[in-house]
C-alpha cells in the first residue's frame, strides 16, 4: 500500500516562470486599469446611474461563488467522511481562500472610495447584508486557515473534524449571504426572490468544483505528477450532477416568474427581447455552459477523455460568468417599475431599457481578480505542502484492485 505524501512543487521550470509572468502581467494591467478608473472617476467605465454594478461585480461575485464551492471537496472528505476526497482537501481549502481573495480584491478596487476600506471595517450597519458579508468573508478566511492548519500539523489534528464542519456550515452561510445581496432587493423585478440564495449555493457547487478540477488537472500535468482516473472520474461525475442542479434552479426560477403576471415583462426581457442578455442566457449560459458540458461529461464517447473534461470545466466557468452577468446586468437593464402598468418617461431613463457596454478597464480589473487567485495558488503550492506527490489510483484508494 502506497502512503499518501505531500510535497511542495519545485517551481523552477520555465513553465512555472511563464505562468507567474503572465499572471503577474495581468495583475499589473488590472492595477493600472484600477488607477485609471479611480483617477478619472467612474464616468470612464460603462457603469452609470442606471447600471450601477458592472463587469467588476460580475467577476467579483463569480469568484466569491467559486470560492465557497471550491471548499466543497474538503467538506465532502471531512464532514461526510469520504476518504477519497481527503487527499484533495488541502488544495480545496487553498483554492477557496485564493478565489475569495481575488473576488474581494476586485470588489474593493471598484468602490467609489477604495481608500476608505478602513471605514468599511470600522463602521457597521448590522441590518445590511453587505455588513454581514464582511464578517462572513473574514470569518471564512480565519476558519479555513485553521482548517488547513489542522490538516498540516499533527499536533492539532484532533480538531480537524470540528474545523472542517465549521468551515462547511460557514461556507453555506457565506453563499447564502452572497445570494441574498440580490434576494433582499425588493425594488428590482429581476432580483427579489428567496430562491436566489439556494440557487447561488448550487451555482457555487458547480462553478467551484469546475474551477477545482481545472486547477487540479493542470497542476498535476505541469508538475508531471500522477493523477489517477479514479479521482478525476469521481469528480467529473459529481460535477455533472451539480450542473444539472443549477439548470433545475434556473428553470424553476423562470417558470415561477412566468406564472405571475407582474413578472411577465422582466421575463420576456431576459428570455426573448433582451438582445445581448437573451443571447447570453440561451447560448452561453444554457447551451455552452450547461448542456454541452453535460454531454461532454456523460457521453460514452468523451466521458473518459481528459481533454473533454477540461473543456467541460472551462465551458461551465464561462457559462457561470454569463449566468452572473445575466442576473446582475440583465436585472439592471430592465427598468424599475415606478408605476406598474403605466408608461413612463423622463430625463433620467425612466421606463426605458438601459444599455451597458463594459470598457476594457473594467474587464481587465475582473481578469486581474482571477489572476490574483491563481498566483496565490501558484506560490502557495511552491512554498507549502498542499499537493500530494501522487494521486494515482492505488494511492487515493488502497482497496483499488
Amino acid at each position, binding site marked *: 500500500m502506497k502512503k499518501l505524501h505531500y510535497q511542495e512543487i519545485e517551481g523552477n521550470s520555465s513553465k512555472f516562470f511563464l505562468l507567474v509572468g503572465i499572471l503577474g502581467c495581468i495583475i499589473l494591467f488590472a492595477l493600472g486599469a484600477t488607477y485609471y478608473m*479611480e483617477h478619472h472617476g*467612474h464616468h470612464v467605465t460603462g457603469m452609470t446611474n442606471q447600471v450601477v454594478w458592472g463587469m467588476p461585480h460580475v467577476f467579483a461575485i463569480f469568484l466569491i461563488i467559486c470560492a465557497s464551492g471550491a471548499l466543497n471537496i474538503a467538506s465532502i472528505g471531512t464532514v461526510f467522511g469520504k476518504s477519497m476526497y481527503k487527499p484533495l482537501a488541502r488544495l480545496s481549502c487553498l483554492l477557496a481562500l485564493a478565489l475569495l481573495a481575488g473576488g474581494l480584491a476586485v470588489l474593493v478596487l471598484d*468602490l*467609489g472610495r477604495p481608500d*476608505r476600506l478602513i471605514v*468599511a471595517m470600522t463602521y457597521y*450597519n448590522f441590518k445590511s447584508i453587505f455588513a454581514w458579508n464582511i464578517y462572513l468573508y473574514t470569518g471564512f478566511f480565519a476558519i479555513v486557515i485553521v482548517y488547513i492548519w489542522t490538516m498540516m500539523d499533527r499536533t492539532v489534528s484532533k480538531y480537524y473534524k470540528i474545523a472542517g464542519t465549521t468551515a462547511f456550515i460557514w461556507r453555506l452561510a457565506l453563499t447564502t449571504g452572497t445570494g441574498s445581496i440580490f434576494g433582499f432587493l425588493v*425594488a428590482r423585478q429581476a432580483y427579489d426572490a428567496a430562491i436566489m440564495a439556494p440557487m447561488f449555493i448550487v451555482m457555487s457547487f458547480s462553478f467551484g468544483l469546475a474551477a477545482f478540477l481545472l486547477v487540479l488537472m493542470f497542476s498535476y500535468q505541469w508538475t508531471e505528477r500522477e493523477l489517477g482516473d479514479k479521482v478525476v472520474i469521481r469528480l467529473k461525475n459529481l460535477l455533472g450532477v451539480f450542473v444539472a442542479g443549477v439548470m433545475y434552479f434556473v428553470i424553476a426560477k423562470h417558470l415561477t416568474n412566468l406564472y405571475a403576471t407582474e413578472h411577465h415583462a422582466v421575463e420576456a426581457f431576459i428570455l426573448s427581447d433582451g438582445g445581448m442578455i437573451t443571447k447570453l442566457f440561451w447560448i452561453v449560459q444554457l447551451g455552452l455552459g450547461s448542456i454541452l458540458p453535460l454531454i461532454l461529461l456523460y457521453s460514452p464517447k468523451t466521458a473518459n477523455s481528459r481533454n473533454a473534461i477540461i473543456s467541460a470545466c472551462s465551458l461551465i466557468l464561462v457559462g457561470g460568468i454569463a449566468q452572473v452577468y445575466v442576473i446582475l446586468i440583465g436585472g439592471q437593464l430592465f427598468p424599475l417599475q*415606478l408605476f406598474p402598468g403605466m*408608461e413612463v418617461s423622463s430625463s433620467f431613463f425612466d421606463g426605458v431599457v438601459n444599455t451597458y457596454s463594459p470598457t476594457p478597464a473594467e474587464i481587465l480589473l475582473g481578469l486581474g481578480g482571477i489572476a490574483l487567485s491563481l498566483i496565490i495558488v501558484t506560490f502557495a503550492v511552491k512554498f507549502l505542502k498542499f499537493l500530494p506527490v501522487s494521486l494515482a489510483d492505488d494511492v487515493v484508494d488502497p482497496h483499488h484492485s
Partner: protein
Amino acid sequence: MASNEKEGAPVNTRREFLVKISAAGALTITPGLFLYKVAEAKSDNELASANKRWGMLIDTARCADGCNACVEGCNKEHGLTGHGREATDAQWMRKVTVTDKSIGKTISLPIMCQHCENPPCADVCPTGASFKRKDNIVLVDKHICIGCRYCMMACPYKARSFIHEELSNQKSYSPRGKGTVESCTFCVHRVDQDKQPACVEACNESGHKAIVFGDMKDPNSELSVALKTSSSRQIRADLGLNPGVRYKNF
C-alpha cells in the same frame, strides 16, 4: 426666524456679522407675532427631533407638463451642473411623464428621494452612511460612504446618483464629491433654518404652487391639513416603505 439670519450662509464682513447678531437679539425683544415664530424655529443647538416628520404633498393637477422649475431650483441650490453626460450626471429630482395607455391620460410629476419611513437604502448600506435622521430626512453621510452603490440597487425610486467624476466649486451647505452616492436632502440645510426646500420655493415662484412641504406629525401644519382633506397616494405603496412624499390628484 431669528436664527435664520444668525445661522445663514457665512458672513462677509464683520460689520454684517454684527448687524445679523443684533438683528437676532432684537428679535427676542420684538413682541407678539415674532415671539411665536421664534418658538417654531429650530435653534442652532437644537437637534433634529423625532417629534417631527418632514414630508411633502405634490398636487399633480397643478404640476404643469413641461414645467421644470422645481428641478432647476434644486440643481441651482445644490450646484448640480452636469458634465454633458446624461447617463452619469447626477439628478436629484426629475420630472416624470406618466401615461395610462388604456385611458390615454398623461400626467407629469416630479420624483426625488421619497424620504421613506423604512428606507431600503439605509437597510442595505454596509457602513450606515445611508441613514434616516430622527425627523425622517433620509441622507447620505458622505464621510463614511465607501461608494459601493448598494443603496442605488435597493432604491425603488431611482432617486440616487453616484458621483462619477471629480467636482469643484461645491456649495458650502451642500458638500458633494467623487466616489460617493447622493440624493435629495429635502434641503436639510434650509429645513434646519425653518425654510422651505428649494424646489418648493421654485414651484411657488413659477406660480404653480404644486408642492406643500411641512411636518406630518404636526396636526395643524399646512401639509397635515392638506393630507387630511384630500386623497393622496404613495408611489409603490405596495412595498410598505411609507414614503414622506405623497401625490395628489393622481
